[in-house]
C-alpha cells in the first residue's frame, strides 16, 4: 500500500479527489483532526485582543520583505557569512539537491537526521540523498510516520494527519519490529523516542528547513512542538539548512509579530514549545559547520506576478487547510503537491507553471472564502485562485467549458440576445423537462445531475412576468 501511494499516477485533482472520497477511514481521520485543530485556533485567536493589528503587521512585514527580496537576501548572506556560516544559492530543485548531497558526502557520513521541512519535500531531497547512498532519517514524528509508510505528507503541519492512531500503531509495530507495542499514545511515543533517540546520538549531520531567516542578524529559526528539531539543530557537527528564498524577513523585531501569529494559527497555542534560533556557528556550542542553502525553484517566477505574489507571504501555518471544506472532504493526497489545501492550490501552479496536474489545483475550491478569513498574513486566497484560473485558461486550448462560457458571454452582451437565448433554451429543453425539472443533463451539466435536480428555464421568466404586469397595469 505504501509504495503504491507514493508511486500513484499523477492525476488531476477532480480524479484523485473522487478516489479519496471512497476512503471513509481517511476522511474520518481528516475531519476529526482538522475540527480539533481549527477549534483550538479559533479559541487562541479569540483570546488575542490585538489579532487584527497583529495580522496587519504580519501582512505588511511579509509583503515588505518580498518587495525587497533581492536586497534582503544579500544582507542575509553577508550576516550569515560574518557569523561563520556558509551560504549556497540554488536555482532549482536539482541544484539544491546536488548541493546538499555534496555537502553531506564531504563529511563522509552515510546518514542524516532531518527536521521536518516542506521545502526539502518539495524538491525531493530524500530521494536524491537515497540515490547517493545516504539515508535520510526524518525525526518529526508525523513526518517519520509517513516516511516509514512510504507516503507523501498530506498536511503542511501534521504530515500523517490522514492516519488514525490504530493505523499508526500497526505501522510502528512492523517498522520498528516491536510486535508487542500497544495502541495507546504513551506507548507509541515511547517507542518513537527509543527509535529516534538512537538516531540523534549517532548523527553527525543534520538537514533542517527554516521557518524564518532574519536579514539584519543572519539568524535562522525553526519552530516546532516535539524538541526533535532542537536535537537536530544542536547535536550534530554539521547542520545544513534548506530554505526557500521567500522566508527571509528584514529585522529581528519582525519575529515578535510572526512568533505570535504562527503558533496561534498553526496549533492554537499562544507559544509553540520549541523555538530554535541560531546565527552562524558558536565555538563550543552546537554544530561546528553551518550551511544555508537558499532555493529559488520557481519563487522568482511567483514574485514576478504582482497578483500572484502575495502567496509568497505564507508562513506555512496550515490554518487555511484546516478550515477548507474541500480539503476536509478529500484529505491532502488528492492534491498533487506537498502544499495540500488552499495555499498549495495557489502556490504549486505558480511554482511549477500552470500545466499538468498543477493546472487542476486552482479549481479545487468552491471559493467559499474561509481560508482568507483565517490567513494570518492576509493572503486573499480566493482572489489568487481566480487569477490562477485565468492563467490556466490562457495557457490551454478552449474546451467545452470555454466554449459554453463564450456562448453565454455573447448571450449576456445585450438584453435582446439574452432574452432570445432564454426563449431558445426554453424551446430546446422541451423534450428534456418534466414537472419543470430537467430529466437529463447535457454535457457539462452531467456532474450536477448525478446528485441534484435542476429546473429548466422558467415557463415565465421574471422579466416576462414584469412585462406582463406592466402591460396589465
Amino acid at each position, binding site marked *: 500500500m505504501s509504495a503504491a501511494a507514493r508511486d500513484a499516477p499523477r492525476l488531476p485533482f477532480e480524479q484523485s479527489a473522487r478516489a479519496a472520497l471512497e476512503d471513509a477511514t481517511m476522511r474520518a481521520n481528516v475531519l476529526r483532526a482538522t475540527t480539533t485543530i481549527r477549534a483550538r485556533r479559533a479559541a487562541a485567536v479569540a483570546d488575542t485582543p490585538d489579532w487584527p493589528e497583529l495580522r496587519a503587521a504580519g501582512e505588511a512585514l511579509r509583503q515588505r520583505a518580498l518587495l525587497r527580496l533581492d536586497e534582503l537576501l544579500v544582507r542575509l548572506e553577508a550576516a550569515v557569512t560574518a557569523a561563520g556560516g556558509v551560504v549556497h544559492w540554488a536555482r532549482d530543485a536539482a541544484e539544491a539537491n546536488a548541493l546538499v548531497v555534496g555537502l553531506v558526502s564531504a563529511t563522509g557520513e552515510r546518514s542524516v537526521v532531518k527536521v521536518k521541512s516542506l521545502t526539502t519535500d518539495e524538491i525531493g531531497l530524500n530521494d536524491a540523498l537515497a540515490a547517493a547512498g545516504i539515508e535520510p532519517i526524518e525525526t518529526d514524528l508525523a513526518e517519520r510516520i509517513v516516511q516509514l509508510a512510504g507516503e507523501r505528507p498530506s498536511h503542511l503541519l501534521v504530515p500523517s494527519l490522514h492516519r488514525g492512531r490504530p493505523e499508526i500503531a500497526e505501522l510502528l509495530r512492523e517498522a520498528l519490529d516491536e510486535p508487542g507495542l500497544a495502541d495507546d499514545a504513551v506507548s507509541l511515543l515511547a517507542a518513537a523516542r527509543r527509535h529516534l533517540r538512537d538516531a540523534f546520538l549517532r548523527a553527525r549531520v543534520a538537514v533542517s528547513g527554516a521557518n524564518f531567516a532574519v536579514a539584519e542578524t543572519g539568524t535562522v529559526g525553526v519552530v516546532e512542538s516535539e524538541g526533535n528539531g532542537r536535537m537536530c539543530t544542536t547535536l550534530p557537527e554539521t547542520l545544513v539548512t534548506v530554505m526557500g528564498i521567500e522566508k527571509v524577513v528584514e529585522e529581528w523585531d519582525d519575529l515578535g509579530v510572526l512568533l505570535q501569529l504562527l503558533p496561534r494559527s498553526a496549533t492554537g497555542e499562544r507559544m509553540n514549545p520549541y523555538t530554535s534560533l541560531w546565527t552562524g556557528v558558536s565555538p563550543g556550542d552546537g554544530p561546528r559547520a553551518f550551511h544555508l542553502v537558499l532555493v529559488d525553484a520557481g519563487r522568482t517566477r511567483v514574485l514576478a506576478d504582482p497578483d500572484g505574489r502575495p502567496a509568497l507571504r505564507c508562513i506555512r501555518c496550515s490554518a487555511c487547510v484546516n478550515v477548507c471544506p474541500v480539503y476536509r472532504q478529500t484529505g491532502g493526497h488528492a492534491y498533487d503537491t506537498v502544499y495540500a489545501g488552499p495555499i498549495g492550490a495557489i502556490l504549486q501552479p505558480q511554482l511549477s507553471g500552470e500545466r499538468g496536474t498543477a493546472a487542476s489545483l486552482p479549481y479545487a475550491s468552491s471559493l467559499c472564502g474561509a481560508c*482568507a478569513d483565517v490567513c494570518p498574513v492576509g493572503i486573499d486566497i480566493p482572489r489568487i485562485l481566480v487569477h490562477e484560473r485565468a492563467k490556466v485558461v490562457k495557457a490551454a486550448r478552449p474546451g467545452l467549458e470555454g466554449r459554453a462560457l463564450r456562448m453565454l458571454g455573447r448571450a449576456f452582451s445585450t438584453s435582446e440576445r439574452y432574452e432570445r437565448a432564454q426563449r431558445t433554451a426554453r424551446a430546446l429543453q422541451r423534450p428534456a423537462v418534466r414537472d419543470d425539472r430537467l430529466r437529463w443533463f447535457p454535457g457539462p451539466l452531467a456532474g450536477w445531475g448525478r446528485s*441534484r435536480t435542476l429546473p429548466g428555464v422558467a415557463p415565465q421568466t421574471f422579466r416576462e412576468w414584469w412585462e406582463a404586469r406592466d402591460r396589465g397595469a
Partner: protein
Amino acid sequence: MPVALFVTCLVDTLSPEVGRATVTLLERLGVEVEFPRAQTCCGQLHLNAGYPEMASALARRFLDTFAGYEAIVAPSGSCVAHVRAHVPELAADPDDVADRTLDLSEFLVDRLDAHDVGSAYAGTLTYHPTCHSLRILRLGDRPELLLRSVTGVDLRPLADATECCGFGGTFALRNADVSTAMLSDKLRRVEETGADAVCACDASCLLHLRGGLERRGSPTRAVHLAEVLAT
C-alpha cells in the same frame, strides 16, 4: 426615489418566484421598484471561471445599466458581492456602485430601518448564511433579525452553519463529487434541525440546496428570505 431591482440572471431565468417575492415585499413597504430591462448578468460566473475579459465587458454593461440609481437591490448575496468586490476594478471605473448595490437584507435593515416587515409565516425554518453573504458582504445577523420578527415563524439553529454547501458555480460541475459530499453534509445538518425549510439570501446556493433536497426525496424545502418576508 425609485430603487433598481437587479434581479440576477439566475433568478430571472431559473427562480423567477424569488424576483416576484422581492417586488411584492418592497412594494408592500412603499418602495418604488424599477426593473432596468437592459440588465443581463454581472459577470461573476465568467470571472470565477477564469475569463476576466468577458467579466470586464459585463461589468461595464452593469455600470451603464444601473447608472443614476441610488440603490440597486438584489436577492442574491454572491452577485452583490461580485459587484461590490470586483465590478469597479473589472470595468476600470471608480464608480461608487459598491456603495449603491445592496443585498435585500441590507436594504431592508440599513436603508429602510425595517426589522419587522409585517410578515406572517407559519412554519419552522433554519437559516444557512451562504459564504459570500457571510464573508464578503458580512451580512451578520441582518437576515436573522428580519426572520425573527416574522409572526409565527419557528427559527431553528443550524449546526456548522458557516460551512459551504458545495455550490461554487462551475465547482459543482468540474468537481461534482466533492461538491456532492459537501452538499450531503450540509443537508444532513439541515434535516437534523427538523425544520420545514432552509432559508438563505442567495438564490444560487438555494438552487443547489433545493436540487439536493429534491433528489434525495426530502420533504424539506429551500426558500429565499424574500419569499418568507413577502408572505
